[in-house]
């Protein structure tokens, strides 16, 4: 039987304070994960080695370094070249989605998200990413 490593550490990169706070409730209180939030791509790149997340969630549109740029930065680090990454975006046009997937994300979560089901969504993405990859 294939072993699926349990998901514990998640990093969230999001510039909006409100969304970071609600994601903390959704992923820590509801989901029981350990969450590290970063307010910018730079902060994420600084913190990633120490926190060693198993999965990274990135807001697409951020001032300065945006989500795709941040992911490219993360991919350059040998330890995180294969870490599953998920984009969050308020856009649902299929061409944009496809381009995010082409950037190497395993999935895209549409905004607004439901704080009560975000954790199970992430867990499902995690499981399927582990099964294929």
């Amino acid at each position, binding site marked *: 039987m294939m072993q699926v490593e349990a998901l514990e550490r998640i990093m969230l990169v999001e510039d909006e304070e409100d969304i970071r706070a609600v994601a903390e409730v959704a992923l820590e*209180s509801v989901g029981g994960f350990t969450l590290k939030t970063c307010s910018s791509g730079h902060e994420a790149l600084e913190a990633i080695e120490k926190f060693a997340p198993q999965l990274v969630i990135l807001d697409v549109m951020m001032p300065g370094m945006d989500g795709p740029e941040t992911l490219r930065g993360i991919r350059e680090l040998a330890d995180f070249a294969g870490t599953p990454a998920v984009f969050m975006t*308020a856009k649902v046009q299929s061409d944009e989605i496809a381009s995010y997937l082409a950037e190497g994300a395993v999935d895209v979560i549409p905004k*607004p998200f*439901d704080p009560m089901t975000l954790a199970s969504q992430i867990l499902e993405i995690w499981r399927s990413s582990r099964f294929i990859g």
Partner: protein
Amino acid sequence: MSDVITSNVSAKLDGLRQRFREKAVHEFEVLCSIGQAVASQTADCEQLAHADHSLHRLAGSAGTFGFSSLGEEARRLELLVKPAVDLCKTGADSGLANLDDEMARDFGQRLQSLQDFLDAGGEPTTRVVAKPPESASNEPLVLVIEPDAAQADNLVSGLGLYGYRVQLVEDLQQWQAGSAPTPPLVIVRDQVFLAGGGRLNETFADLPIVCIGATDCYRHRYALANEGADAFFCEPLNLPLFANHLDNLLTDRADAESGRVLIVDDDQELMEHYSLVLSAGGIRVKTVIGDPGLLLPALSEFRPDILLMDLQMEDISGMALARMLRFEPEWLSLPIIYLSAESDRERQLEALARGGDDFLTKPLSDSFLLRTIRVRCYRAKQLNNLVSRDSMTGLLKHSLVKSEAASEHARCERMGYDSAIAMLDLDHFKRVNDSHGHRAGDVVIKGLANLLRRRLRKTDVIGRYGGEEFMVVLPDCPMGQAELLLNDVCKDFSKIAFEGKSGEFNVSLSVGLASLASYGHPEEAIEAADRALYERKRSGRNGVTVAFQ
């Protein structure tokens, strides 16, 4: 325990919702002045860019905080302002060159009216309550509108025994004053409902409304039905039957709202688009490209209600894939719906003859797709329930609950956690049947089924094992917790008063509990739980005994 988590989470979310509201009010002041500038055609590019950015953020976040209609309006306005912002990027000094007076005025006014959506959006996330997460309590909240305090007390404590958390108000005004989340079901005194003249229906659109009252005649019933009530119960209430009906209404609703769809297509973009549309509508989606080697594992892992498949993919025929699936008895009854640009009815029929169930012809609109898939998932679940569930209690049948126990045993080994398995048996059930009749006996069995459904998590497995014997599997649940939980179930069940031929009576419950992970084979764990149950029966019934390894 999960109760504490839920209320804790709700409190936190409420706090965040409040904070969002305060910030939004501040944001609206800025947007309002931009709106005025747009309406008078004097908005500059900087203002437009600000509006665009701010609307985009609102579109993405408002819904998360329970202000969905605000989020949707912000999205519409964002799409309106986008061309103007793009025009600015080309170096034009006014982004509004393409906007005529009327459009500019309309857009400006709508920007200034955003605040209204925030006020109207006191409809916080019904979704939070309607769709509890796996880890949270499964207990529903019902709203009771009852002006009489004594009656209300009775109802609250009665429903409490069945695991319903009740929010109580005296009238509609009182409810609207509060900012609690909308509950999934409303129980209302019939007089209040009729006096409201349709206002309740407006306030609780789509929610089941159950009326209670002391008057019972056909004219009264007709009047209630005509006003849009979903059910009527005459007092004195038969609580077990009442709870059973509430349960059916809620389960129906939950079934109608959720669903699992596996999409098979070779157009990655289209698949992602469908997937987003459906998941935004509350449906769980998994996508897989049309590779025969990937499809079966994906099916087994995801277990969808329906399969949505492109008929003609590159190199692969959807029809052949469907037939291949039908080789497996397990997937014989899985509904397969083809997506196709094929509009020739003859060719469609041919495809249906080869293992498909229906056609959706491309192109299809997002809302049509969502509605169709919802209905299909609901039907598929209903059918599946008919074959796999005990008709009296709606619980899993003997063979299915056993196979669930076996797969949970396998999961325990794979994931490295422990799960609990319990056998439950009603005490002296034969006496109930003998002295109160079989109908009373049936009500007792349904009563226990409902209590279990209310008390356990959505992920827990509940089955009717035999006549008055039940089996329960609690995934990822340590023995100590399982024992506490089932002890509570025993206590509450023994307090329920049933009505029989010779007056009210109570029935108690014995439980034998074992740890799935401690046994090499699921059958051994079931036997251990059975022995513990026997032990409990011998040592006085009414309670839980844990299997000794």
